[in-house]
């Protein structure tokens, strides 16, 4: 494989990483908004008395739910979201490292090609 073909392949790989990265960033942002929404619900539940009437939207109907049950549901959801955030964060760190490595590879190849071109003159 010639150097320019190699460079092309590397650039393609780099672009793939970037697309992947942007989807992961998007997922991270979505999780963040879910986290804050659930946190605000948790806060609201915290300020309610035990006899508060809470309803849960299931499809088009509202179902009455015990407060303890609702609180547990939100707590569980927060736990899940937090673990998801951790997972996505590691993914993000991995991708960033991968991207950085590819960038160095590309720059290395480019300088190599430039040097070769200069030597050929």
């Amino acid at each position, binding site marked *: 494989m010639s150097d320019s073909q190699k460079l092309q392949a590397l650039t393609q790989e780099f672009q793939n990483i970037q697309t992947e990265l942007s989807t992961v960033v998007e997922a991270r942002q979505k999780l963040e908004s879910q986290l804050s929404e659930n946190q*605000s619900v948790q806060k*609201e539940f915290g300020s309610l008395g035990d006899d508060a009437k*809470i309803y*849960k*939207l*299931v499809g088009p109907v509202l179902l009455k739910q015990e407060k303890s049950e609702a609180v547990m549901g939100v707590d569980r959801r927060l736990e899940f979201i937090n673990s998801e955030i951790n997972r996505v964060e590691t993914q993000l760190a991995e991708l960033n490292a991968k991207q950085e490595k590819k960038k160095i590879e590309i720059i290395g190849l480019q300088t190599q090609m430039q040097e070769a071109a200069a030597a050929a003159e």
Partner: protein
Amino acid sequence: MAAPQQQQIDLNSLTIDNLAAVKKQLDDEIEHLMGASTKLKKAQDRFREYINAVKAGIKPETSDKPLLIPLTTSLFVPAKLSDPEHVLVDVGTGYFVEKTAPEAVKFYTAKIKTIETNMADIQKVMTQKLQNVRVVESVIVQKQTQGGQ
């Protein structure tokens, strides 16, 4: 949310192309912040509307008055409020809580306040970014005049 960008870079050491890229990124960020700010403003207006609706309609006197309930935007049925004191408030993520009218107003007022602090935060960041853009712009102009000589 991406990698932290707290390292110090001397703007004068960058090329015009690099500076243009920096400026574009800042512009994008500012645009994003402005969009977020408009959205928050809209949400705030909506909460104000809710407060007005609760204050106007949810009181004991309303139970004697006939109401027209919209089934669609153009079809109404006459009805009466069976419970003129309580409302169900959407607290998020599919949960609704039964509240009295004053409690509902309090809830929405708190929401409006939270949004207000968020908006103030955004404003602060935005002022900072705008300032950064101005600095970058002035360096670009400086470089261009230098390059032209």
